[in-house]
């Protein structure tokens, strides 16, 4: 699987994403600098976590207007896969490639902890290595992960199986206590209609080795490999 990781100014999970892709795919990913107008031909482009442009404007808003964005959009339009984690998810909503917005956490505080996610759709490009209904551990670390969309959009996401992951407790229930940021419907990750773009707030790239406390994040990357094979 050929992949590429985009670096915006103050992306800070680009190395973690790069390492995870390299370890799991066995191939060295390409690097895309935010000012690159031409990008390599790859199977998946990853928009990593971080604080692009300091998050001084709305999170992801500046990055979504970077020179590299046009080529990334073209890649997606051709059906190429795009994943956005944390700040990358925010960039995808700012680009309009995914619906809704990520607002400030309901607690108004940054939150870093390992949460449980339920795999809501195990048939997608990004989730097929998991079983439907699996409860997995994945860390979150964000200040603005409170997913918001209007009622029609939420209904559409629910009805068309485009909610990839939901925050749940260890019994798999989407409770308010299990929701780290106030997201509507406990949404942790969503996909676009075509199914080639996914955005999620939790960080699967942080949990791919036993030494990190578990390997539940691997399935995310393995799913994409499965799809391409």
């Amino acid at each position, binding site marked *: 699987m050929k992949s590429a990781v985009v670096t915006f*100014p*103050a992306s*800070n*999970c680009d*190395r*973690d994403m790069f*390492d*995870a892709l390299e370890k799991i795919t066995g191939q060295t990913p390409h690097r895309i600098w935010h000012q690159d107008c031409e990008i390599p031909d790859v199977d998946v482009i990853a928009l990593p*976590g*971080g*604080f692009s*442009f*300091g*998050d*001084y404007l709305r999170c992801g808003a500046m990055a979504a207007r970077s020179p590299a964005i046009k080529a990334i959009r073209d890649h997606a339009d051709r059906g190429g896969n795009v994943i956005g984690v944390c700040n990358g998810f925010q960039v995808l909503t700012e680009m309009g490639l995914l619906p809704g917005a990520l607002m400030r956490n309901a607690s108004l*505080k*940054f*939150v*870093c*902890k390992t949460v449980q996610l339920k795999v809501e759709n195990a048939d997608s490009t990004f989730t097929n290595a998991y079983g439907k209904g699996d409860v997995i551990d994945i*860390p979150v*670390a964000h*200040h603005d992960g409170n997913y918001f969309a209007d009622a029609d959009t939420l209904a559409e996401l629910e009805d068309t199986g485009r909610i990839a992951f939901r925050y749940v407790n260890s019994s798999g229930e989407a409770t308010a206590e299990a929701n780290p940021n106030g997201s509507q419907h406990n949404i942790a990750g969503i996909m676009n209609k075509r199914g080639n773009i996914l955005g999620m707030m939790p*960080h699967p*790239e*942080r949990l791919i080795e036993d*030494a*990190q*406390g578990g390997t539940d994040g691997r399935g995310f990357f393995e799913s994409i490999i499965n799809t391409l094979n």
Partner: protein
Amino acid sequence: MTETIWNNNPEITEDLVKEHGLSESEHELMIKILGREPSLTELGIFSVMWSEHCSYKSSKLHLKTLPTKAPWVIHGPGENAGVIDIGDNQAAIFKMESHNHPSYIEPYQGAATGVGGILRDVFTMGARPIANMNALRFGRPDHRKTRHLLSGVVEGIGGYGNCVGVPTVGGETNFHPSYDGNILVNAMAVGLADQDKIFLSAAAGVGNPVIYVGSKTGRDGIHGATMASAEFTEDSEEKRPTVQVGDPFTEKLLIEACLELMSTDMVVAIQDMGAAGLTSSSVEMASGGGVGFTLNLDKVPQREEHMTPYEMMLSESQERMLVVLKPDRVEEAEAIFRKWDLDFAVIGNITDTGNLTLKWQGETVADIPTQPLADNSPEYDRPWVKTEPPATIDPNDVAAPNDIGDALLKMVGSANLSSREWIWEQYDHQVMADTIQLPGGDAAVVRVHGTNKALAISTDCTPRYCYADPFEGGKQAVAETWRNVTATGAQPMAITDCLNFGNPERPDIMGQFVGAIDGLREACTVLEYPVISGNVSLYNETNGKGIHPTPAIGGVGLLKDSSKMVTIAPENEGDVILLVGESNGHIGCTQYLSIIEGREEGAPPPVDLALEKKNGDFVRAQIQNGNISACHDISDGGLFVTLAEMAMAAGKGMDIALHNGDIPMHAYGFGEDQARYVIATAPQEADAVIEAAEEVGVSVARIGVIRGQDLDVQDAFTISVDELLDAHGSWMPKYMAKEL
């Protein structure tokens, strides 16, 4: 500050000198060095360079006595940060620094820029920062400012560290009335570099260009170093303009740009602009290399209009660095900084005069020989009186509580012993994906990226011990980090110290300082644990009332094989629990006495350093051999709190039976005797571990097993782990939500 500073050439009166915090004798020394009266800009430069904060004039006589060398120490104190050899041509670079005064005045920015400053000290040397730690002290919880200060400091540390993408992996937070008027914010950073890619600040090469990179210079932070060298009074809040404002976005770009620059061979010397900004960076680089600097201040990137030389030289605007490049490499270097959208300006060059010469609008506004400015700064042997340690309290003289279990619940749910999860959840502690022991254990552990090695890091100090007996307290602070690092299985390597004290002009405070240094020296020597960097923060006083002496220690250890690491959480039901070390029920100066009886009295527990070493070396060897499944050192709150913390971390109960002999159970369980650990081991390994202990003369006792869901101590109490978790976890969230 009066209006006179706007004019570059006012008459230098005694009042103006005094206003700059310089004494009469210092004024005379200044005239002797210059051969004339200083200009205003020069007066400003002398005042910050000779401030307590930058010159260590009250402390250096004593600091010189600390052990700083070991075969594994590559650079000790004197550089931006200390450097140790961690094998394979790799080095760990670390330092801890205070940002106390600004954090009290403006907690968010004070703490944020504390993190930014310490990160720059580390990446200036060529290291990629891999971990942030901190040591925080606040006033009593019911002081009207404490909530505001705590929430601001935590948000500031998180706001900065999270954005730059360096994990904040742990630290300690205490509350005590002695910090009501002076909180302590001590930030530590650890970085990683290749040994052949370490950069120093000493400039060289006459004619080489001097480059300014990073953010523009503004009027923020002027006289910050001077502020940090004076006591607070009621009107200290008027000093808010001396607090700098942080920009972590720029810092992140600066880290990447500097590391990119340092991966080439263009750099001769590099220095961050920390306290006293452009002044201290240029003076240190020039005096360190025995050269002169001529700087054209018109070239300094400026954020505000009409800045004077005085303001530019004293500004503490953040995220700036000074670099000396090899000749003819300017364009290449500039391209790197342009790529990262950072300012880059050639502001001067190296000369052979030995002077710092400043030009502005065609005039020379300062011309100071740097060697005497840096090296002949005042050094005081301040008078001091020894702190007389209080008498030791006999455990039999402290009445038993009505119910030991209730006392334990009260303790684990107290301000000082409750969970810090509310704090560390606001820090990204996992970015960089190498954090293999999360906050909440004895030490944080981060992997050395791409290897199987790891660094264990712990910050510690027990100020109530230091107040009662600075010598024993100083020893204990060092020993506790050593134990915490050991308890993960790591070999303790070196420390950084952040020495927070009151007004050194008072002999009793100076006595605390001298006593603590004596303790540090003895502990570092016996434990072979040298001081490789540090910082001194004096004048932590308000209206003549000083803080408890707080020599905060940041210890770093190396795990050659990180798969051997253990945590405080025993994993397996049936594992045997052993108590290592001798328990004498030392009840004086303990958390028990403070929380349950509301008094802080008695001598602190004595620290037998030879015993520390013997017990710690034994425990570490057992961890390395794979015989131990969990380990926790015994410190605040004694054995009972330690057992409770292990049970909570594992979510498992314990059946415990203690052999307390003649010692009352509450003193045995809550006593804070040093050099002790609780370890868990598989049942089939227990006898071998006990035998191994006996062979090397280490005291060890089998005290119980992991079982069920209750912490059950025979003849003392039974408490469910859930009840402990509830008490431990609820204090801080409730307190911050004003529900307490």
